[in-house]
């Protein structure tokens, strides 16, 4: 019986792969339908195989629940998931993200105006940006309490340095020629900043914003492992793991994935509107 299921799984895999090879090497491979269809077929095949193998081989639910069960759980506990989403993503991650990015923007302007600060702060910033900043979570949870404020604080610290490094790099993007041109027009620092240098920095700013969007979610979720009220995605994940309710954990992971890609997608969309002039967008 289990052998039969394995053979069936292999056949499905081979069939789907064959289909993808045909589409990918066919004449219509460059159409939008093919470019969406091929990864969709791949993902769907994985889901079907997952379902088939878990159910067919009777893999215990505490190891891996089948996708249909996760979907059931997801649909069945929408209010809980929504409350967790609001607590972790909207209150924790988003507020921290906004504060962190604004703070980095302010600091970047200071750094930009002073050469001394640039030479002093940038190596420190680059260094800190590579550190495992999630580690500050226990300290910040101790300072700001268990509620979302401490999660927002972790997110602020996590997004600050990547944003600072990216904005500062972006503000260096203009050439001397362009800056001299602004000077010949007797433009003040702020005129040059708003009309020339900030627009030129936008590709870098958005790069930083995109990196930070993932970091913000990670920070908010991981900070909840160190203490949280009885709501929140990190809280739900760690307690459900403790109860071996893995379908709930997977449902939260689906929420995290949806929130992460929506967040990223939104920023990418704004980027497209703002940096329409950049070669990578054309």
């Amino acid at each position, binding site marked *: 019986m289990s052998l039969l299921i394995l053979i069936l799984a292999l056949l499905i895999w081979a069939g789907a792969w064959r289909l*993808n*090879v045909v*589409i*990918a*090497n066919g004449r219509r*491979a460059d159409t939008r339908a*093919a*470019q969406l269809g*091929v*990864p969709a*077929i*791949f993902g769907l095949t994985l889901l079907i195989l997952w379902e088939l193998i878990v159910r067919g081989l009777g893999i215990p639910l*505490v*190891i891996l629940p089948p996708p249909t069960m996760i979907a059931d759980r997801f649909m069945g506990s929408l209010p809980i998931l929504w409350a967790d989403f609001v607590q972790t993503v909207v209150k924790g991650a988003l507020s921290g993200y906004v504060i962190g990015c604004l703070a980095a923007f302010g600091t970047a302007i200071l750094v930009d105006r002073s050469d*001394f*600060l640039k*030479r*002093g*702060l940038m*190596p*420190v910033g680059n*260094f800190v940006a*590579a*550190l*495992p900043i*999630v*580690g*500050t*979570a*226990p*300290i910040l*949870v*101790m*300072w700001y309490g268990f509620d979302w404020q401490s999660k927002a604080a972790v997110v602020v610290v996590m997004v600050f340095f990547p944003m600072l490094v990216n904005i500062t790099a972006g503000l260096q993007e203009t050439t001397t020629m362009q800056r001299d041109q602004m000077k010949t027009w007797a433009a003040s620092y702020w005129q040059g900043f708003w009309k020339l240098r900030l627009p030129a920095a936008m590709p870098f700013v958005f790069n930083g914003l995109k990196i930070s*969007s*993932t970091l913000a*979610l*990670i920070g908010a*979720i*991981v900070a909840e*492992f*160190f*203490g949280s009220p009885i709501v929140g*995605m*990190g809280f739900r*994940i*760690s307690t459900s*793991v403790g109860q*071996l309710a893995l379908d709930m*954990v*997977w449902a*939260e*992971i689906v929420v*995290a*994935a949806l929130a*992460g*890609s929506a*967040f*990223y*997608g939104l920023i990418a969309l704004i980027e497209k509107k703002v940096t329409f002039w950049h070669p990578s967008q054309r």
Partner: protein
Amino acid sequence: MRAIFPVLTVVAVIVALWYAACVPMNIHFAVTQAERAGQVVTPEGARERREMGAIPLALKNPSVWGDTFAQDKPRLPAPHQVAVELWETTVEKKVTSKRSLIFHGWITLSATLLGFAIGSVAGVLLAVGIVHSRAMDMSVMPWAIASQTIPILAIAPMIIVVLNSVGLQGLVPKAIISAYLSFFPVVVGMVKGLRSPGAMQIDQMRTWSASANQTFWKLRMPASVPYLFASLKIGIAASLVGAIVGELPTGAVRGLGARLLTGSYYGQTIQIWSALFATAILAAALVAIVAGLERVTLKRMGVGR
């Protein structure tokens, strides 16, 4: 080299701010202690002080400022307390001791390195497959890119517990999380690198009637090295984060992540801060090693600066 003076200034300012912040952060407890010891403090009575902000209280009691730098469980330990703790738990403790940071650091480091090795080898192999097979490119690449927008770290507790239930404990589950985190940056960077030779260079190989294999080993592979190192640097930092977070749900027995968690359970702030600095030093050292390898390799390939 001309950056040394500004960098030192910035670091000095940060340390000075840190010391200054210690006073208001720890003042409430310091004043209470001083009152119990019989000193005169203003205002008297714990209730009135609880209502007061930290800075006015600090300004009214300059005599207890010294105590704010020497508490056992301060809200914010002073830099020298952290430095002393770091020194004591690395140099003065035996390496096998459970209180030695080197012991805990090694636990975390071994999981990080194993995971990083698995993740980057798998990442390079998948990237090679993606570049060679158009079907693989079209099916896998969108998922690899999309997976970078997802907070993958959230599944760390589940991986630990699931692997625990099938009998895997200790190093391997953490290494799997590390591998998972370093895998996708390496795939994306390596694919970019293997694709970096321009049409002109590919055509040149064709005019020499080079086989696909020769093009791969003599053009694509060398061209991808700078990209590979850039993603390895991201990957190793991500691996370390993965190993640390992987230590949180196991009940926090060993490793730097465990030090962070037990510290936060028992309010041992100095322990948290020293573990935090240990992770920072470890991360900086790992990234520096990869960067050093990068410089040497690129120099030998003749593209170094």
